[in-house]
């Protein structure tokens, strides 16, 4: 739980925590290693500082620290938690990517995009799932069978293929917010079947209860009845959130990694992982895996949350998460 909370807070506080903008690029820092923070110098202890980085070989991405100078860190400067005293000598906590952008900042800003599209997608999936499941459970009969058939059909499809094809055939010119909405919509479409099945089962059971019968007898329409029965599915839906989040997060990573999601400057985690896909540089620049680790942390967080619910471990396997990842 703590893990998740930290991630969400970090994402929201990105403008404060991140030393630099996600598109800010530094000269002569391509694939630079994480900046080392020193406290000790030849003349004793100092406030934390860094040393300037000198380019040794551009083609081989080799840099050396200049041991003669100290550049102190500045705290709470211009709305950022910490930067260096010299803008040309940046603090790269997680190193730099292929064109010299700060990986740490991009991971923080990317959290907003990746987690954002995931959460909106989850909300959409649950909304559609609740509606469809609610109607199916309330009405029963042919509507029920038909809707559940569609849900089963979609459940059997590999989520990645589904979103891939849908995104692949639509190639309009999109900006970041439009991509955000499109991806959320696709995730909602891919995620609703499982929620619908669960809600339908619960609603169908509730339907047989006395109060439901009474309501029916009193002349309640389908929609009103469904709305009365849905609250029983609260617990299920809460669990669904925990299961859908990792699934959709990984789906975003996959789609953006394949180049069909967010564009380069917007620093979504999936897009950043493209740099890591180049195995030639990866061995020398392992900090490129930072976005992958971020995804891992979030998924781990949701796992731990679901574990604290005891028997929910079995639901992991039956979750939509498995088929989307």
């Amino acid at each position, binding site marked *: 739980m703590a893990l998740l909370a930290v991630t969400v807070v970090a994402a929201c506080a990105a403008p404060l925590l991140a030393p630099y903008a996600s598109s800010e690029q530094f000269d002569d820092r391509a694939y630079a290693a994480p900046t080392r923070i020193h406290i000790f110098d030849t003349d004793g202890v100092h406030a934390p500082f860094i040393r300037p980085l000198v380019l040794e070989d551009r083609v081989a991405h080799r840099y050396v620290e200049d041991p003669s100078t100290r550049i102190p860190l500045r705290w709470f400067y211009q709305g950022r938690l910490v930067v260096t005293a010299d803008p040309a000598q940046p603090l790269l906590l997680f190193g730099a990517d292929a064109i010299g952008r700060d990986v740490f900042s991009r991971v923080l800003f990317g959290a907003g995009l990746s987690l954002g599209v995931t959460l909106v997608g989850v909300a959409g999936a649950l909304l559609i799932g609740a509606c469809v499941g609610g109607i199916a459970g309330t009405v029963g009969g042919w509507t029920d069978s038909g809707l559940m058939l569609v849900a089963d*059909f979609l*459940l*059997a*499809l*590999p*989520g*990645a*293929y589904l979103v*891939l*094809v*849908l995104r*692949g*055939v*639509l*190639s*309009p010119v999109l900006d970041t917010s439009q991509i955000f909405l499109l991806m959320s919509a696709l995730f909602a479409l891919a995620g609703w079947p499982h929620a619908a099945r669960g809600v339908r089962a619960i609603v169908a059971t509730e339907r047989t209860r006395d109060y439901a019968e009474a309501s029916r007898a009193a002349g309640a329409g389908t929609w009103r009845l469904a709305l009365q029965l849905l609250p029983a599915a609260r617990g299920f839906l809460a669990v669904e959130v925990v299961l859908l989040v*990792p699934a959709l997060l*990984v789906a975003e*990573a*996959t789609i953006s*990694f*394949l180049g069909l999601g967010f564009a380069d400057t917007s620093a979504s985690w999936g897009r950043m*992982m493209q740099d*890591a*896909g180049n*195995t*030639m540089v*990866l*061995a020398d620049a*392992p900090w490129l*895996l930072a976005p*992958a680790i971020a*995804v*891992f942390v979030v*998924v*781990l967080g949701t*796992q731990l949350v679901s*574990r604290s619910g005891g*028997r929910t*471990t*079995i639901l*992991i*396997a*039956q*979750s939509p998460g*498995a*088929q*989307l*990842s």
Partner: protein
Amino acid sequence: MSTALARFIAWRLLVAGLFVLVVSSSAFILVRLAPGDASREVFQTGVSDASIAANRQRLGLDQSLPAHLAAWLGGVARLDLGNSSSDGRPVTGVVASHMAKTASLAALALVVAAALGLPLGILTGTRPDSLVTSIVTVISLALVCCPPIIGTLALAFLGASTGWISIAPGNYLWPTLALALPLAAMLERLQSQAAAEAFAAPDIAAAAARGVPVRRLVWRHASRQALRPVLGVAGVVVATLFSGSVAVETITAWPGLGQLMVQALHGRDLYLVAGCALAGATLIAVGNFCADLLRAAVDPRVRLIS
């Protein structure tokens, strides 16, 4: 074979066939409706309208959608999936070879995952207090959170820096591990829970009291009970494997269906996309069918419900 089982199999085959049909037709329709088609080469100079029209005719794009779909389905019945619009090669051959690659990878990953996950799950489920259980549980938890895309990159780093894992193309080790490890972890967790429950069941406890050796209890009686929930998620497992294979194939340059599909979508290659969808759906249907058969074998109740 009893009539119940025969009916079960027949019904499942019918559903599988329908599934494949609907999926591939949907893919066909989607690509046809989408903007952009392959009737002109990219950046071809001075193309005349007559030439474009002729090209459209060769690709069958001048027919209406229902007629085109019907023609294509007719071809499918003859196992002729048309020709790729980029190089004219028969789609059937291309898709078949890539399908075999994906299927072999998925099957191997499944076997490895089951071989690792199921026995370990039974172990941890029936011996909750041992040190081994704790270690395995922690590792399992970590691996469950490593979906194939993350796992592939992590293994790439491991392989590139230590050389333990060969990242050479065509080598099964890297992609198989990436697909199998999270699946193995999931199976282990599932099996562990199921085994723990089965082990605590009254009849097992009674048998233990009678003096039946623990080993036999675990491997004969409890595992059968415990397999049921695992097989119950077989459908999801199959879908997971193929979903994960898209990213894995791209990163490891594995010449499978996922890679082919991405390429085909880029080039708006209608027959190739539909062919990939057909192949993918077939693999999923086959996987689900096998899982159903296994379930029927293990649990007689399934045959009757159908």
